[in-house]
């Protein structure tokens, strides 16, 4: 493993809710200031800023001005969704390695419940690929991604109960996490009786629309030596798509396999680790099935065995591969996956309290869009020694 050049030195977040009274700018600023303070920095040391958004957020030029950044040397706004949570980390790491910036803040701020809600595009959004979707009543992520789940069920016999284990186990984790939005225990009976959204998906298969923000500070590893918290190193990153990197997967040959098997091979090679080295996985779980799919795609089990792998208890806190100890997008919050990075950092700092994965030192984080995505491997104390 090569000596890691870039690390995450600060994290910040707001309260997660469904009905914030705060503006988007306030959310972005609060998370960013918390991350900057967590990194032990002053605002005037920050010289890089990057966010991703779905035309639903506050952009860098506004946040930079409001933060009072003195010298913005590198910035970018990406029009992208959950595929970009790890991509912004990769972009920031590249900017730092190239010497374009010293301290980069990455943020995602949204009012996903009280503001602009995903999938509610109305008939006005009929441009591009939507012209072939909207007339048939097809627009929401649950509808679009439900197609992949159904195909996997057909190919491999994946069951509703196996999806249910993902929801139930993640809810158990969320019960140990003060900032999680859904913390009441969820039983399998409740899961199976969930209101149908887009069959095969019911209410408990879907993540929750959230108001809130997360932010992360990255810097060169040698600049973080005196930071208040132990650095979390970026060991490798990947960001790409399959041969048809577009929702809703028109032309995709096999809907039971995502773009991730190819990207995972590249990521592991770059990071110098393999699936057996991963201590904790933050798998993008906008929907339950995505966890099952990524367990297969990242080599934790064979294709088609993701359902039984989950059913056998492997993804619990005491399992062979703890997944989403914070409760995930399903039960903690949906900050488009940037909250996965927050959790990975807390786990690798060994600061995750009751939900701490014992001995967590290498984490996988993913941002999943089925036909495209990003992923990173992060390393704790041993990576810096």
């Amino acid at each position, binding site marked *: 493993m090569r000596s890691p050049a870039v690390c995450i030195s600060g994290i910040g977040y707001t309260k997660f809710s469904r009905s914030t009274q705060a503006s988007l700018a306030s959310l972005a600023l609060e998370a960013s200031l918390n991350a900057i303070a967590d990194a032990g920095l002053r605002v005037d040391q920050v010289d890089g800023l990057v966010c991703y958004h779905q035309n639903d957020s506050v952009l860098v030029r506004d946040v930079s001005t409001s933060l009072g950044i003195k010298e913005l040397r590198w910035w970018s706004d990406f029009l992208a969704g959950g595929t970009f949570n790890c991509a912004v980390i990769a972009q920031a790491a590249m900017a730092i390695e190239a010497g374009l910036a010293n301290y980069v803040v990455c943020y995602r701020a949204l009012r996903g419940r009280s503001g602009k809600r995903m999938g509610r595009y109305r008939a006005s959004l009929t441009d591009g690929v939507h012209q072939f979707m909207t007339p*048939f009543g097809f627009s*929401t992520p*649950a*509808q679009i991604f439900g197609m992949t789940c*159904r195909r996997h069920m057909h190919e491999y016999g994946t069951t509703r109960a196996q999806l249910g284990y993902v929801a139930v186990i993640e809810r158990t984790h969320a019960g140990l996490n003060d900032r999680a939005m859904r913390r009441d225990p969820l039983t399998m009976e409740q899961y199976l009786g969930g209101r149908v*959204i887009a069959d095969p*998906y019911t209410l408990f298969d879907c993540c929750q629309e959230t108001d809130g923000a997360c932010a992360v500070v990255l810097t060169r590893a040698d600049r973080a030596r005196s930071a208040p918290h132990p650095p979390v190193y970026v060991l490798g990153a990947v960001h790409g798509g399959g041969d048809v990197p577009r929702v809703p997967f*028109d032309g995709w040959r096999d809907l039971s396999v995502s773009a991730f098997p190819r990207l995972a091979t590249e990521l592991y090679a770059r990071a110098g680790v393999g699936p057996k080295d991963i201590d904790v996985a933050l798998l993008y779980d906008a929907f339950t099935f995505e966890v099952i799919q990524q367990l297969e795609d990242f080599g934790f089990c064979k294709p088609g065995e993701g359902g039984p792998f989950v059913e056998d208890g492997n993804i619990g806190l005491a399992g062979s591969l703890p997944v989403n100890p914070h409760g995930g997008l399903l039960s903690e919050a949906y900050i488009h996956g940037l909250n996965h990075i927050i959790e990975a950092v807390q786990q690798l700092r060994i600061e995750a309290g009751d939900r701490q994965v014992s001995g967590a030192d290498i984490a996988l984080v993913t941002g999943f869009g089925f036909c495209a995505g990003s992923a990173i491997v992060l390393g704790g104390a041993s990576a810096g020694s």
Partner: protein
Amino acid sequence: MSGSGTVYSFVVVHHVVTAGFPPDVPYVVAWIELPEQAALRILSNVVDCPTGDVYIGQQVEVAFLDVAADFSLPVFRPAS
């Protein structure tokens, strides 16, 4: 084109947030694979069939739903 197809995957939409033209809820949105070319699929509705009876591999055929005087949508129903 033959107008025939096979259901490749589908969802049954119960929770409607953007109204399309399907008149009833729940309704089925499916990827329909066309026999003319491998992996050539069209997104459409499966109609004239109870939602619980739609399945992957089902043979379907095109029908045209007249939405307005000058606008029809290709939808699919079970093959006769």
